[in-house]
């Protein structure tokens, strides 16, 4: 009897009954807790614990439910989880099945944004070194934005006003709501694949609430922009709105109109530059010609070249001048000779025998010859005695 009174359960029966009881007893409820031991399996399901200061409970977020989550569950995150209380029968463990999660401390969007930012920054998608320069004078500009609204009109207006002659290629996309980010990303990829001669892309939209701008904070857009070979200028919302697209773009413009101003030069400024170059060229040529003229003038300015007669005149004058100087030169030459003669004559005087006669000596001459020996004459020979002044004719007496 005692035995019959006992009701024996199998483990499975217990677990099953507890499971049913739990499921029947608890309505869907919101649990507040901190995420820990969080792990996503290849299946896409995420297993985690929710804990507070005193205790913890296992929980699972199935793949289907995780799709609606805008951010990623991470250890340490304080959350509000909407869940069913149940048990994992094969282990007999209490378990929460989570259908929705809200971050406790900040908005889900904000959190998602921060998480994506951290992830993409770590991958280097925001690196300055990745940023491509914009073409200075583009011919074809691509625009990825809504086909309606102020943004596309502003862009077209500013582009055509500043830099006429552009080919503006608009790829109309949805810029908000589900699927918008995929469309934007695809349009950026299509530009690269199908219209690669587009030289710069403007990707953006006009202002709106943060939710409206959200597509530009999503990963597909960030990836497409960073992979684009065509430089991308982002222009999302207003001055103060910064989206992930802005961080990955090669250049961020505060608004669509500003983006249009950034990608093309202004016609007037370029025309001015051309005029300036023309002026510089003209001046350059003028300088060149002046320099050559100066050289020519210098060479041509020489008197002989300027008037060849001068060369002849010079020669004639020189002849005249020389001719005029000739008599004088002759006179001088003669004088010099006369002087030399006088000097020589003086010297001659000194040794002349006539000088000796002056002192009382006489020369005896016979037949014109000076007698130096008595034997040169005989008695009765005529002898002439030459005195200083005059001479005496004599006869040898003995």
């Amino acid at each position, binding site marked *: 009897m005692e035995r019959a009174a006992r009701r024996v359960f199998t483990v499975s029966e217990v677990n099953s009954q507890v499971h049913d009881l739990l499921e029947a007893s608890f309505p869907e409820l919101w649990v507040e807790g901190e995420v820990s031991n969080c792990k996503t399996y290849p299946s896409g399901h995420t297993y985690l614990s929710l804990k507070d200061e005193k205790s913890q409970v296992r929980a699972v977020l199935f793949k289907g439910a995780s799709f609606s989550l805008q951010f990623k569950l991470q250890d340490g995150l304080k959350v509000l989880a909407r869940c069913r209380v149940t048990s994992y029968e094969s282990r007999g463990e209490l378990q929460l099945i989570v259908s929705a999660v809200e971050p406790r401390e900040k908005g889900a969007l904000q959190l998602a944004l921060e998480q994506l930012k951290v992830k993409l920054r770590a991958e280097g998608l925001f690196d300055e070194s990745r940023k491509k320069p914009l073409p200075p004078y583009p011919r074809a500009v691509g625009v990825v934005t809504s086909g309606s609204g102020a943004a596309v009109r502003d862009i077209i207006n500013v582009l055509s006003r500043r830099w006429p002659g552009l*080919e503006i*290629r608009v790829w*109309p996309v949805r810029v908000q709501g589900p699927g918008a980010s995929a469309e934007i990303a695809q349009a950026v990829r299509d530009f690269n694949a199908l*219209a690669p001669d587009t030289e710069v892309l403007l990707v953006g939209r006009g202002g709106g609430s943060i939710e409206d701008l959200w597509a530009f904070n999503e990963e597909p857009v960030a990836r497409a922009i960073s992979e684009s070979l065509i430089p991308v200028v982002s222009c999302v919302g207003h001055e103060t709105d910064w989206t992930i697209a802005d961080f990955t773009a090669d250049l961020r413009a505060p608004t669509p109109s500003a983006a249009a101003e950034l990608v093309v030069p202004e016609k007037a400024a370029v025309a001015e530059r051309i005029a300036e170059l023309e002026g510089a*060229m003209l001046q350059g040529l003028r300088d060149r010609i002046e320099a050559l003229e100066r050289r020519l003038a210098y060479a041509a300015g020489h008197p002989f070249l300027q008037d060849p007669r001068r060369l002849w005149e010079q020669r004639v004058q020189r002849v005249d001048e020389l001719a005029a100087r000739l008599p004088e030169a002759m006179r001088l030459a003669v004088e010099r000779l006369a002087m030399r003669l006088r000097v020589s004559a003086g010297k001659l005087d000194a040794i002349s025998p006539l000088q000796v006669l002056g002192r009382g000596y006489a020369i005896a001459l016979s037949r014109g010859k000076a007698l130096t020996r008595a034997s040169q004459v005989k008695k009765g020979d005529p002898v002439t005695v030459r005195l200083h002044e005059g001479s005496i004719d004599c006869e040898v007496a003995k």
Partner: protein
Amino acid sequence: MSKVKTESFEDCLRSLEELVRELEAGDKGLEDSLALFEKGVALAKDLSRRLEEAKTKVEALSKDGGKLVKKPFAALDEE
């Protein structure tokens, strides 16, 4: 835009700038300087003409079976 493949505006402008620099360097003979000048004037004229004659073209792009389709663009909310 003509279909004839001409030198880009940027390349033309760069040529002009280069030419002005050469001319300003002043180490060319008169014939060379004149030739540069003539070339430069032609370039400047061409650039100005491109600026003046340029007409903006706005197209809407879309895809049809993986192929690019170009149509004149009209804002969806106009008229």
